Structures are given as structure tokens and as C-alpha cells.
């Protein structure tokens, strides 16, 4: 937990402050300075003479911003639909869960490729595609959590006092399960970063010359043999970020253990 928080904090800090320290333009092409080894100019330069350290740090901004946006969108959808389905129950629940199951049945990554391709390559279409295929997972988790909590005494008490459903859910129920909820949804972070970087690697996300880790890896591929360090930096950056969010999620889960049957039905 502490390690995950620290690592992730360090990455966020690097993304925020890093570009202020390494002031080189990440997109400035200088063909005379191409493929410089690390040392002379920080981490060296890529095949177009662009500063690798600057690209890596600006890439962190791209990755973290996209991850945060997607995570927020998925969590908002998941919590809304999941809470409505779990709390309302009955026909509405059945209908919403049927839709959720249909979406869960798609091979997500492939469908995201198809959607992003249809919309035209770009970060916006990639985010939209991943949001469209990804929301069902968290919805199921949240619904299970709400369903298990619905019969708790404090929920019944709030209902007995005449609180409208929206108030019961938002003020009482969700606030009480916020911890386990966060622990459940945080497990999605690593998956989000992986799919974002994977599809960018395939050329569907950030378009050149935008610095992004997946796209950097894909651009560096032809130099795998001669300059493997071009691949090393973005690869390590992606792995460390995924690892850090994994540690964070694991820590949050341990913190909220036992989950009070939170995964029942999920």
C-alpha cells in the first residue's frame, strides 16, 4: 500500500514537475542529434533526435491524464448504473444486468479496436471506445456491493424516516461502502493503463508526434536490435506504473478486508 502510493505519487510528481525540469521540447526534431546514447543529454535521443527524457515525462502526462479520465468515466458509469440496479431490484435490475452481461460478453479489446478504428485513430476515440466496452465490469461489482448492503439496518432506518431513494443511496449507502467500493474499482486501474498503452502501441491511440509510452514503444520497434534502450525506458515506465497501481489496489483491498460480502453476486 505504502509502496504503491509512494511509487504512484512519484510518477504523478514526475509528470507534473518533470517537464519543468527537463525543459527540452519533446517534439523538437534534430536529425543531427539522432540516436544519441544515454548520458550526454539525459537519456539520449530517439531516431528523430528528440529528447527521450522529455518525451518520457510528457508521455507520463498523456498516460496519467488518459488513465484518470477513463477511470473517472468508468467509475461514474459503474457506480450510477450499479447502484440503481442494485438498489431498485426487480425488473429494472434484471434489464440493466442483461445489458451489462451482453457488454461483458464482448471480447473487449477487439471491440475497442473496432470502435476506435471506426471513429478514426486518436486519443479521444480510443478513450470513448474503451469506455464503451469497459463500464460493465465495475457496474457488476458495484451492484453486488449495493445489493449486499441494501438490507442493512441503517438503510432500512433511512427508508423508514421517509428519505427519498436518491438520498438513501447517495447520502447513506454509498458513503458507507466508499472504502470497499474504492478497493474494488481500483483493481481496474492496471487494466486501464494496459489497454490504453496496448492500443496506442497498435497505433490507435495517441497519434505522432504526441509523446505517449505505447506509441514510443511502437516507434522504437525498428531499433530493437541496434538501440534497445529506446524501448527500455517506455517499457519500464509502463510496467512500473501498472505495478504501482497493482500494489495500491492490493493495499486498498487489504485495508477493507473483510469486504462484508461485498463481492456477493458480482
Amino acid at each position, binding site marked *: 500500500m505504502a509502496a504503491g502510493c509512494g511509487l504512484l505519487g512519484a510518477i504523478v510528481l514526475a509528470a507534473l514537475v518533470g517537464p519543468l525540469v527537463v525543459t527540452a521540447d519533446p517534439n523538437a526534431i534534430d536529425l543531427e542529434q539522432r540516436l544519441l546514447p544515454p548520458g550526454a543529454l539525459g537519456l539520449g535521443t530517439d531516431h528523430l533526435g528528440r529528447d527521450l527524457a522529455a518525451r518520457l515525462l510528457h508521455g507520463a502526462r498523456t498516460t496519467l491524464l488518459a488513465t484518470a479520465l477513463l477511470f473517472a468515466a468508468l467509475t461514474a458509469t459503474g457506480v450510477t448504473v450499479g447502484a440503481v440496479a442494485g438498489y431498485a431490484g426487480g425488473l429494472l435490475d434484471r434489464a440493466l444486468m*442483461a*445489458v451489462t*452481461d*451482453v*457488454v461483458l*460478453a*464482448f*471480447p*473487449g*479489446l*477487439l*471491440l475497442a*479496436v*473496432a*470502435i*476506435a*478504428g*471506426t*471513429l*478514426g485513430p486518436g486519443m479521444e476515440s480510443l478513450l470513448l471506445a474503451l469506455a464503451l466496452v469497459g463500464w460493465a465490469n465495475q457496474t457488476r461489482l458495484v451492484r453486488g456491493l449495493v445489493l449486499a448492503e441494501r438490507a442493512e439496518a441503517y438503510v432500512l432506518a433511512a427508508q423508514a424516516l421517509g428519505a427519498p431513494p436518491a438520498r438513501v443511496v447517495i447520502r447513506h449507502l454509498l458513503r458507507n461502502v466508499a472504502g470497499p467500493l474504492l478497493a474494488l474499482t481500483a483493481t481496474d486501474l*492496471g487494466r486501464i493503463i*494496459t489497454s490504453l*498503452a*496496448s492500443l496506442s*502501441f*497498435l*497505433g*490507435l491511440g495517441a497519434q505522432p508526434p504526441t509523446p505517449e509510452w*505505447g506509441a514510443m*514503444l511502437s516507434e522504437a*520497434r525498428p531499433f*530493437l*536490435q541496434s538501440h*534497445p534502450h529506446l*524501448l527500455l525506458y517506455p*517499457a519500464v515506465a*509502463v*510496467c512500473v506504473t*501498472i*505495478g504501482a497501481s*497493482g500494489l495500491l489496489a492490493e493495499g486498498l483491498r487489504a485495508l477493507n478486508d473483510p469486504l462484508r460480502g461485498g463481492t456477493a453476486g458480482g
Partner: protein
Amino acid sequence: MPAALRRRLALVPLQLLGVALVVFMLLTATPGDPAENLARLRQPGSEPTPELVAAIRQDLGLDDPAPVRFGRWLLGAVRGDLGVSYKTGKPVTHDLLARFPATALLAASALLLSLAIALPLGIAAALRPGSWLDHAAGSLTLLALTVPGYVLALTGILIFAVTLRWLPAFGAGTAAHLVLPAVVLAAGASGQLFRVTRAALLEVLQQDYLRTARAKGLPPHTLVLRHALRNALTPVVTMCVTMAGHLLGGAVVVETVFGWPGLGKYAVDAVFLRDAPAVLGAVLYLTAAFVMLGALIDLAYGALDPRMRADKA
């Protein structure tokens, strides 16, 4: 048939219809006029004449209202007619069938490999939780789940294809070509399988009936293999099926990195060529296969778990 299972199976047509609807909407949303694309295919080299485009438009009924077109397209899809690829000029179904064996081979190899790794490790770790083996396997799993497939793939190419020159980095044809992509896919899969196997077996091992079995003096291997494992297997099988589906449909990245001529690479290539019928045909068939696979396994649960046979729920 148990009610839960009936509900589950009733979902299958709904799922297939949902898939078809999404795919059709995407097909309609794709920029570019399909009639124009087809005309270009029939008259390569020259710009299509407006008459030809209009004729094709008439021919395919592209001016009909959307629900009519959806109905016709669905009828065609059910019969295996997914239209013609703008790129190859062949029926999409033909292309898909030609690519399917490669994907199936890769998915099956990866799944078998991950089972061969994860099952023994998971059992050993569950029998001695906290031992060095448990810790080592747990750390390896964390590593396998952390490193994204394409990073692992590039590392594998760098070490075994570029540096050591033991294995080919690209293409298909020989058994050696299969090794790297299968291992990369199996790494992530065995990480998940290991966790499920270990957790399920640990839980089962704590149950009363196993203490009874131990108390009556059953030898350890009978205890574990006959009594414990059989009960722990259900979540493992579920995981395997989910993974088989993901391997069939989700090997997009690995197939592309290794130039493996399967469905995933076909779909990605088609995306970049703006070959809408090919992309959506691939998505439709893979998803349909995924959904059917899931339903079949739910039916097979009865054999594994007698409780699923009773009409409860």
C-alpha cells in the same frame, strides 16, 4: 434444467442480438460510402462512375430504412454472408475461415501451456501456503500480471530472436514460430489461473469433509486429487473458458507484434485499411464464438458440480 441455467441460456440469443446490433451500428457509422467502395473494387484503377455507384446502391438496397437493412444484414450474417472485404475482394467469411485455424492453434497452445504451469504450481502453493514455493510463485504471478503482453513480447523478441537467434521473431509456419507468441500469451493467463487454483483449493482444504477424509486415514494424494481438487475445479474451469474466449478474441496485440496470421491481426489490419465489413465480420464471429463457448460450459457445470443439477435458485 435448473432455473439459473435456464436464465443463463435465455441470455444467449439476447447477447448475440446485442452483438449484431452494435456491429451493425458501427458498420453504418463508418465514414465512406459502401457502394463507392465496392464500385472501386469492381473497377480497379479508375474513379467509379456515378451510374455504377447508383446501380450497386440499388442492388444492395442501401437506400432502404435502417431497420430493413439491419434485418437483411442479420439474415445474411446468420447464413454466413458478411459481405465482401474491400481489401481482398473475397467474401469476409472466406477470409475469416482461412484465418481461424492459426488463431485457434495459438489460443489452444497458450491455454494448455498455462494449465501445465499454473495447475501444479497452484496445487503445490495451496498445500503449503507461506512456503518459499508459494512466495516464489506468487511473486512470479505478480510479475506476469504486471508486464503487459506487448512489452513481454518485445523482450522475448530481443532475447530469443535478436540476441540468441534461437527462435524466429515474426511470421508462422513452423513449430518454432509458435513458441514466442504462445509463451507470451500463456504468461498472463497462467498468472490468473495460478491465483484462482490456489485460492479455490485453499478454501476447499479447510472444509470439514476434508478433515473427515484425513481423519479416516486417506493417503494425501487421494485426499487432494480425488476429494479436494474436484471441488476446487469449478472456478478454475470458469477461468479457463473466460480465458479461451479472451485468447480467441483478445490475442489482437500479440498476433500483431509477432505477425501471426490469425483473426486478431486480420481485424487490426482491416481497421487500418478502413475495411469495415472485414473488421465487423471478425468481431461478430469471435463474439458469437465467445458467447456460445460460455453457454456450453455452463451446461457442462452439471457434470462437475452436482449441486448445479438440482432445481434451486
